[in-house]
């Protein structure tokens, strides 16, 4: 993707001027260190007197802890101490993963280490502190635990049955949260419909599998009463608040540093009990403590996601007009709701987003979330979207087949018209600045369905089943405080940026957004240089340090460009204004006759200017030369917040063409197209790479990934060899194109781009596979769509 030639957002100034970096695919110079092995990941850090920990984790999904004997473990080589819940709870207060604005959420208190009862295979029970990780692991084997195994509630579908195993007796049953949405009158509409279609889809529990596992170094400095945490998290200020609150520390003296993070995708934005235990241990011992999860710990303790069974019904008239949609969704989580974002949000988004691209006057949705004795579940890239988009688009295809309508036509006639915004989703969520019609038209233009149809017939003759799918979707991005803050969580929806011109003429920028590889640092630099009028290389950026950046939300829900970027734009414009005021005073001229280009203040209609370096020298070293009353300010800070609506939405149209080998059941994705409307693109190449990376993660969920459990609640495939992740060979090249509708909520007009790929790919792949299987009267209704399921659907096994 090369630079954008068209001016995608006039508010940002013309694009044929010096330093017009917004819309350019500028390489990430700051990231080149990774190619020299120069990254600074948490595990690369060593501090003086630093110790290591290893956790003894429950081997059972549900068991009583009768007693724990750590005597022998304490004698083991290099061991400093061994703690259980008793010692950790002296320092760390329990938490509850609930929010106050989504109706009653019932989750019990959770502490870092299990007390009396372990409730999932992998839950931390005891912890050894030693001079090395190896010595800590040696000592684990000497801890004697008297377990009394209990029946486990493994299956989500029986979790609310009368004879279910009640995981938390004090709650009375295994219900965590439920919600109903009821717009219009679906029953009446279904009676009037000419065609009603139904389906029930199963989505397997799977997880993010970041290549870098979770890691933390906690460093308590007793003399300074200060806790410094090196963490590969996504939201430093959120962790600052939580660690201060639960360890009873002064929040202003808790510093979170997140340097390089090896991929996160939502996995690293939650509070994990083992990491909280590490902070408590550091406070007790008064020295740095390091914990790096190994791969088995990652599979059994990183949050899981997407465990849903959803039944749906759609009613259309004979022309294909959608009259009613109804869904009933069941989701299984862990024994606790994760803190602080809760395990309700995935289901909440399924209810919010089902049918979102379409006009559906009658919509009913019920969501039920139940506890299980399995790994806790929470937000992972494209939260709830794969389920909401798949059930919607599967039902629409079924309706199209039933009334004999083209797959693209039935969608185009039901879209919320591009010119009818602001508008609402069927569930009532406000929508604005979307382009489903234009995006579908662009998709059909680059996809050429006629050619695909002819190939489908030719393939059929040769015994190959090929098929295609086209879908539309909305992606949640740039949330406002109505997402979490309103529910009482100290999760900031605001972001800040601070920018200064230094004595050398260099520019320094800091932002509360963080970097996990998506290119945040690069786009912040582009926005600042573009709006200030300086060369890219003269800007230096600091992220991921609560002592060195403004306060703000960090990275989640694809908010970096849209919220963090706007804060940088506002700060850069403020600094530019300050600089021009000073220059006007020094140059005895009117500010409006000046501008800044390539690090120089220039006179618009020619003549002598002044370099930023000279101006800075004057201000910092020869202030006496500046006219009185100018009070020069070469530092500016600004913040930004989305107001009035819960989210800013991005929309995407996706197409996919697959072929199925009828003997092996193996599915080949031959072609994949994604058209995205994320408003202003700061760096087109980085947007494209977010879509490609997202689609591949979606393909993982659609075809490969599942956390397989036995009926006792033990995960069976907790290794990189057994848990199938997408590797290079099976993945297609992805054709990416764009429509641009700037968000009216900001000057920069950028919407998020990080998650649409993951949200839409499972739906379009499933539809394409079923389009192929339909030729022989077969159908698959559960993901991952494995070769075995295909052969079963074909009646071959």
């Amino acid at each position, binding site marked *: 993707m090369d630079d954008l030639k068209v001016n995608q957002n006039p508010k940002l100034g013309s694009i044929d001027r010096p330093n017009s970096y917004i819309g350019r695919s500028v390489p990430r110079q700051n990231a080149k260190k990774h190619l020299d092995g*120069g990254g600074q990941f948490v595990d690369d850090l060593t501090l003086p007197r630093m110790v290591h920990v290893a956790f003894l984790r429950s081997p059972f999904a549900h068991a009583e802890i009768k007693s724990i004997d750590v005597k022998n473990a304490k004698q083991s080589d290099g061991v400093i101490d061994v703690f259980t819940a008793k010692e950790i709870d002296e320092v760390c207060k329990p938490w509850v993963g609930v929010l106050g604005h989504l109706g009653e959420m019932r989750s019990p208190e959770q502490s870092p280490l299990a007390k009396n009862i372990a409730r999932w295979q992998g839950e931390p029970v005891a912890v050894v502190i030693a001079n090395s990780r*190896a010595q800590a692991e040696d000592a684990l084997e000497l801890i004697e635990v008297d377990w009394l195994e209990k029946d486990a509630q493994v299956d989500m579908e029986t979790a609310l049955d009368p004879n279910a195993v009640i995981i938390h007796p004090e709650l009375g049953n295994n219900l965590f949260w439920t919600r109903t949405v009821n717009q219009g009158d679906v029953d009446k509409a279904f009676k009037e419909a000419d065609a009603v279609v139904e389906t029930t889809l199963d989505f397997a529990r799977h997880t993010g599998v970041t290549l870098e596992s979770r890691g933390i170094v906690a460093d308590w400095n007793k003399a300074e009463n200060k806790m410094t945490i090196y963490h590969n998290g996504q939201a430093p200020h959120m962790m600052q608040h939580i660690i201060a609150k639960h360890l009873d520390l002064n929040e202003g003296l808790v510093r979170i540093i997140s340097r390089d993070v090896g*991929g996160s995708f939502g996995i690293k934005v939650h509070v994990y009990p083992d990491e909280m235990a590490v902070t408590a241990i550091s406070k007790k011992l008064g020295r740095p403590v390091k914990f790096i999860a190994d791969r088995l710990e990652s599979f059994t303790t990183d949050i899981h996601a997407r465990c849903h069974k959803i039944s749906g019904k759609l009613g259309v008239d004979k022309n294909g007009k959608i009259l009613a949609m109804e869904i009933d969704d069941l989701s299984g989580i862990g024994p606790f709701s994760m803190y602080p974002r809760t395990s309700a949000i995935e289901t909440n988004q399924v209810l919010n987003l089902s049918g979102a691209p379409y006009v559906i006057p009658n919509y009913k949705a019920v969501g039920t979330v139940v506890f299980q004795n399995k790994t806790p579940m929470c937000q992972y890239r494209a939260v709830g979207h794969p389920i909401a988009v798949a059930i919607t688009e599967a039902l629409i295809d079924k309706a199209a087949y039933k009334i004999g309508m083209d797959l693209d036509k039935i969608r185009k006639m039901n879209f919320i018209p591009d010119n009818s915004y602001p508008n609402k989703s069927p569930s009532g969520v406000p929508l604005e600045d979307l382009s489903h019609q234009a995006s579908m038209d662009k998709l059909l233009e680059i996809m050429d369905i006629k050619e695909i149809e002819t190939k489908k017939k030719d393939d059929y003759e040769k015994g190959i089943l090929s098929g295609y799918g086209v879908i539309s979707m909305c992606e949640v991005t740039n949330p406002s405080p109505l997402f979490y803050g309103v529910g009482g969580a100290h999760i900031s929806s605001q972001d800040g940026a601070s920018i200064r011109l230094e004595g050398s003429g260099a520019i320094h920028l800091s932002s509360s957004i963080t970097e996990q*590889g998506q290119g945040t640092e690069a786009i912040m630099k582009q926005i600042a240089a573009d709006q200030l009028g300086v060369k890219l290389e003269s800007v230096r950026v600091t992220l991921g340090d609560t002592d060195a950046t403004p306060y703000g939300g960090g990275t989640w829900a694809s908010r970096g460009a849209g919220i963090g970027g706007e804060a940088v734009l506002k700060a850069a414009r403020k600094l530019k204004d300050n600089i021009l005021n000073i220059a006007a005073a020094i140059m005895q001229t009117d500010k409006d006759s000046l501008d800044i280009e390539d690090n120089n203040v220039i006179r618009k209609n020619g003549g002598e200017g002044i370099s930023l370096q000279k101006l800075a020298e004057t201000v910092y070293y020869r202030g006496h030369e500046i006219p009185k009353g100018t009070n020069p300010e070469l530092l500016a800070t600004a913040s930004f917040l989305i107001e009035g609506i819960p989210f800013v939405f991005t929309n995407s149209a996706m197409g996919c063409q697959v072929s199925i080998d009828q003997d092996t059941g193996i599915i080949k994705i031959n072609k994949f197209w994604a058209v995205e409307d994320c408003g202003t693109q700061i760096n087109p*190449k980085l947007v494209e*790479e977010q879509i490609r990376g997202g689609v*591949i993660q979606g393909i993982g969920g659609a075809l490969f990934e599942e956390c397989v459990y036995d009926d006792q609640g033990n995960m069976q495939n907790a290794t990189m060899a057994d848990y199938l992740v997408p590797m290079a060979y099976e993945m297609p090249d992805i054709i990416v194109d764009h429509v641009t509708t700037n968000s009216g909520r900001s000057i920069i007009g950028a919407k998020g781009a990080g998650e649409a790929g993951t949200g839409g790919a499972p739906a379009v792949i499933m539809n394409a596979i079923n389009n192929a299987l339909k030729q022989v009267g077969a159908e698959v209704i559960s993901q991952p769509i494995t070769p075995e399921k295909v052969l079963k659907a074909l009646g071959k096994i």
Partner: protein
Amino acid sequence: MTANNTSNISFTVNGEKFNNVNVPSRQHLADYLRSQGLTGTHLGCEQGACGACTIEMDGKAVRSCLVLASQANGSDLKTVEGFDDQMMEQVKESFLKHNAFQCGFCSPGMLMTTKEILLSKKKLTRDEIRSEISGNYCRCTGYQSIVDAIEECINEIN
């Protein structure tokens, strides 16, 4: 094997000599290298499946989490910190240009595998490149940009 059982070995890493060094016999090579500050070699699984720990040992790409440090006795090792020859600098430029990495955690292993591809002098199609790197797990890029970069390197360097 008791915890304080060590092996005495000598080897070179990126040209630097390590003579008569005592390494825990059970320690794998990746852990040892990282303990010596060569933190560019990363650990993603310690099961030989993800490729993040790939280094060069006597001219061959190996998974340093599956090699015991003691097995490196007498070997000449090269890690990502030592990829400063003219060819690898060109590879790095191509990776940067094509944004063939995002978080950077898989990059050391990907660069090592790319080096092996280029030294093999084979002219590869995109599918064959995908097959060559199918032992290196990346969760961020979706692989296409990496294939683009390697394809460019094959055409320009070989």
